[in-house]
């Protein structure tokens, strides 16, 4: 059947059953391949995207739940030419090793920084906890989130003085 979903501000008609996980629709129907299939059980966070601004596991979110709600994926942040602040910070800190977890990591970090641009170290660690990285670049990922936080805070100070 046809189901309407809003992804990154655009309406889409997906050909899928309502119990189909959002992740499959994103990847197979809409060809948005940023979110990854990791465990399929909500245990690793590789599939993290936003629904109404909250980070969720798209592998455990049937699209039947998404009528009238806004989905945001990593493709909705920046582009290869023009990455957004968090994507740039992940690049600058070389936070990716194999890179499989990174789209999920960035989306989870984005949800935190959207809500609170200056989180403490403890808040970052608690918030990032559901997402796993098998390569072990956690220290770089944390540094990237801190860097993005600093840049967002500076930007907001600069913006405020204008």
């Amino acid at each position, binding site marked *: 059947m046809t189901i309407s979903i809003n992804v990154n501000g655009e309406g889409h008609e997906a050909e899928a*059953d*309502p*119990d*189909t*996980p959002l992740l499959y629709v994103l990847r197979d129907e809409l060809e948005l391949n940023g979110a990854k299939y990791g465990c*399929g*059980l*909500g*245990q690793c966070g590789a599939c993290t995207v936003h*629904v*109404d601004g*909250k*980070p*969720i*596991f798209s*592998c*455990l*979110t*049937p*699209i*039947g*739940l998404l009528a009238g709600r806004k989905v945001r994926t990593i493709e909705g942040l920046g582009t290869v030419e023009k990455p957004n602040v968090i994507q740039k910070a992940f690049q600058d800190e070389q936070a990716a090793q194999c890179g499989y977890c990174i789209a999920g990591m960035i989306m989870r970090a984005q949800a935190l920084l959207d809500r609170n641009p200056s989180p403490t*170290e*403890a808040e970052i*660690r*608690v918030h990032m*906890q*559901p997402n796993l990285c098998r390569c072990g670049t956690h220290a770089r990922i944390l540094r990237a989130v801190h860097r993005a936080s600093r840049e967002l805070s500076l930007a907001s100070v600069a913006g405020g003085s204008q």
Partner: protein
Amino acid sequence: MLSFGQAKALRGSRFIQKAGRRDKTRPGPMREIKRNVYKSEALHMKLSKRHLAIGAAFASVAVVAGLGLAAWIGYEPAIPEIARPSASSFDRGLVAKGEQLATVGDCIVCHTAPNGAPFAGARALPTPFGTLFSNNITPDEKTGIGSWSLAAFSRAIRQGVARDGSHLYPALPYEHFTHVNDDDLAAIYAFLMTRQPVSQQAPENQLLPGLGFRPLLAGWKLLFLRQTQFERQANESAEWNRGKYLVDGLAHCGGCHTPRNLAGGEERGREFAGGAAEGWNAPALDETNPFAAIWNVDSLFAYLKTGSDRGHSAAGGPMAPVAEGLSRLNDADVRAIAVYVDSRMHPSGEATPSAVAVVAANDSRSTAAAAHPEADLLFEGACSGCHAPGAPMNINGRPLLSFASDLRADDPRNAVQTLLQGIAPPGGKGAYMPSFSDTMTDRQLADLLAYARARFTDKPAWPNLEAVVGDIRKENAE
């Protein structure tokens, strides 16, 4: 010879006994008050300024006397500071014993902030009376307990009085710790004094107005703190006695599993009748537990030691850190706790079969799907990866939903909380279940729970489920 504090507590307990034995035919305090009210109404017409002045004088004397009395009851002397004993001055065997006992007491859970240094305190403890912040119990001399002698430590644990003489809030479960014996306290002291000192001051407590006045706690203790030594029961086994000693004392199980009164004291005579903690139900641990017939020593042991039992479900909410702590406790002590709890669940001593042998693995999918067609799709997309019969989780020995006590309970609260909060075991070890609060509405969660109950249990539908989900979601947000 009784210490000052013990003598006062005895006075307190006598007072309570007296109050309990009061002859019902004699005028009770309420009646006396009423009579005095009538009297004052009769006198009211005749009141002159002089009367008022005399009355005010008497009232102020009474207030001063009352405050004086409160101060006298509440007064505890400071115990002199000591130089921090060097870690090498403690016997290693004693420290190791203390480590196990501190694990039973779960000190680390309340005394460690999220991602904070172990035992350095500052964890927010929400209570009905406001938010308390736990103290630093590392041996830092300024902000921790580095300058506390064993005597000061023991008084704090057993009587809830800090080294400087101030009263501690009963979030420190001294109602239970008062039963811990001297040797065990010395071992826990040795363990804590050999930890890494961390300089960290807890934030100020945020309590309801007036409750920051600590001498009030002396009154609370008069009412609720019974300082008694653990008494062995000769007709029970050594294992049972060990279990009771741990459960009543350090493990402070009653702190959550016994109902509390309005003043936050555990209700006398209703020990283990079931309580509440952090928005979750703490099930009864006595014969009123609805699943008492299918708990036994082995299943209690497995649940406490590993955080889940095949015939029940995984420890969630505030029980998760308890099970995580007990996973590091020696098997003999965990088994002793299981033996004692089992005896409370089965007071007549009947042997019980395991749940796996008794509870049928219900799965009425077609009936449930007919009643809740949308939820059947939700379950397929969101839950079946782990919870469908035959999913990897079940093959790995985790409980089936048809065994989950929370899904079969009369009150849906814990099942609702499991969906709203998920199960996040401390340190990421153990069963992890994500939260569904951000993807599902109250109506969808209620529908899904109703479906799961219809599909996996033979229990009747929960009433008003959507409103219950909404209420609990609101509570969690506060």
